[in-house]
């Protein structure tokens, strides 16, 4: 699946989200590599300076 639209709700330390997507299609999306897995490299979740939150992870491809 490839996701393109998200609705995220934050309630204290709880996050609920809906994600919309479609099955990956080589012809339509022209993906280059598969994600092997999410890693702990530079894993970071914190309030962003401009408001909201920033969550980051590095994917192994």
């Amino acid at each position: 699946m490839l996701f393109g639209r998200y609705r995220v709700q934050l309630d204290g330390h709880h996050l609920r989200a809906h994600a919309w997507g479609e099955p990956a299609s080589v012809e339509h999306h022209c993906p280059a590599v598969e994600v092997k897995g999410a890693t702990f490299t530079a894993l970071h979740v914190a309030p962003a300076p401009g408001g909201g939150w920033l969550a980051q992870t590095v994917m192994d491809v």
Partner: protein
Amino acid sequence: VDLELLRRRGPCEWEIPMQGAMRVPAVIYADEALVRAMDLKVHEQAVNVACLPGIVGASHVMPDAHWGYGFPIGGVAAFDADAGGVVSAGGVGFDVSCGVRCLHTGLQRGDILAVQRRLADALFANIPAGVGSTSAIRLSGAEMDAMLVGGASWAVGRGWGTSADLERIEEHGHMLHAKPAKVSAQAKRRQRDEMGTLGSGNHYLEVQEVAEVFDPTIAGAYGLATGGVVVMIHCGSRGLGHQIGTEYLREMVVAAPSHGLTLPDRELACAPIRSDLGRDYLGAMRAAINCALANRQILTHFVRAVFAEVLPKASLPVLYDVSHNTCKLETHCVDGQARELYVHRKGATRAFGPGHPELPAALRDVGQPVLIGGSMGTSSYVLAGTTRSESLAFSSACHGAGRAMSRHQALHTWNGRDVIDELAAGGIIVRSPSTRGIAEEAPGAYKDVTAVVDAADEAGLARKVARLLPLVCVKG
């Protein structure tokens, strides 16, 4: 890596002396230019690995090493379970048992040139390649478990190959002590439709000609001669291996404190070999090795079917099949004493020397074939394991060229279509579902494989036997 940080032991051997929490030194096998070009992270990671409990001898770095997850890619480390040794999911890698298989064809370069484009199209049409690729094979739950225990032997039992193939595969085609029960339902679900698929990224299938022979005696024993044609398959354990890596990495990070492990870097997540988690990971990882062996066996069957159609006079027995992301229990002589060690090879190839009992009779006198995949459009190499390699790095050698540039950089440097056209002008026909993938895998994004192989030969890790050049490349 700054040479100031190293003590030179020989033309292609450098030591990172013991410091801080290191339990053993680290040793880099590479020439000066390759060492200088290595990311400083490789140095840091080799040092971190040397700090892990139960490590024996040294933390080894192969000539093609680059920055990996926890362990460098191109890292070799052996652990003694009796000395509190650990097993690390990051020390094996996400693509468990990614490896290379080489098939003879009995054909000559001229045979391929006569049908080159037709062969390329037929291979591309029949070898599922690229992101999300699936084959017509669907495994039920019971068949999945049988595959995870039986590996290539299971595939041969299903009619995909012959029993003669099995003796040319490490572990005779199936890794013992695999535990399908320790592989999650999600990992099995991801694999259900992916048996007999190449995958994407750096995975490929190439038809190659033997361009140069360095050691005629060993080449003769391997059945290689200049002008001859082989097929090289590079792929791994697909979604199942990736999922096992992801899940056990997380479990190992969480459980580390309960095992009394203080990790220099959380990417080094590991578990004692003698712990429930260590045993579970080993069982799941061995099941993933079987998945990769079965996958390459099924792909072999697909390749044979294509050749039967396009070049019916071809015969495609297996030369050899190596895995370069594994942890295996092996007996090695350390300071004159035989010891049972868990050898992690991440982006490193097992390279047993002449006389090793694991090798098939036909290869035992000359040593194990070490198959080194180049990058698309460049040379690949066949090397042979040496007797000396055991004392250097637990009988291990390099695995490929190793990336010199990130995928992102490559994408901004090359255009996939141009790369395909340039390779075609050089006589190499490339077929791929993704031109973007081609740009990311452009030959220039990799280190010079010849320099890597020369360094491995010079260091004594393995001996150069033959150089291969691609004629057809199906890129995942």
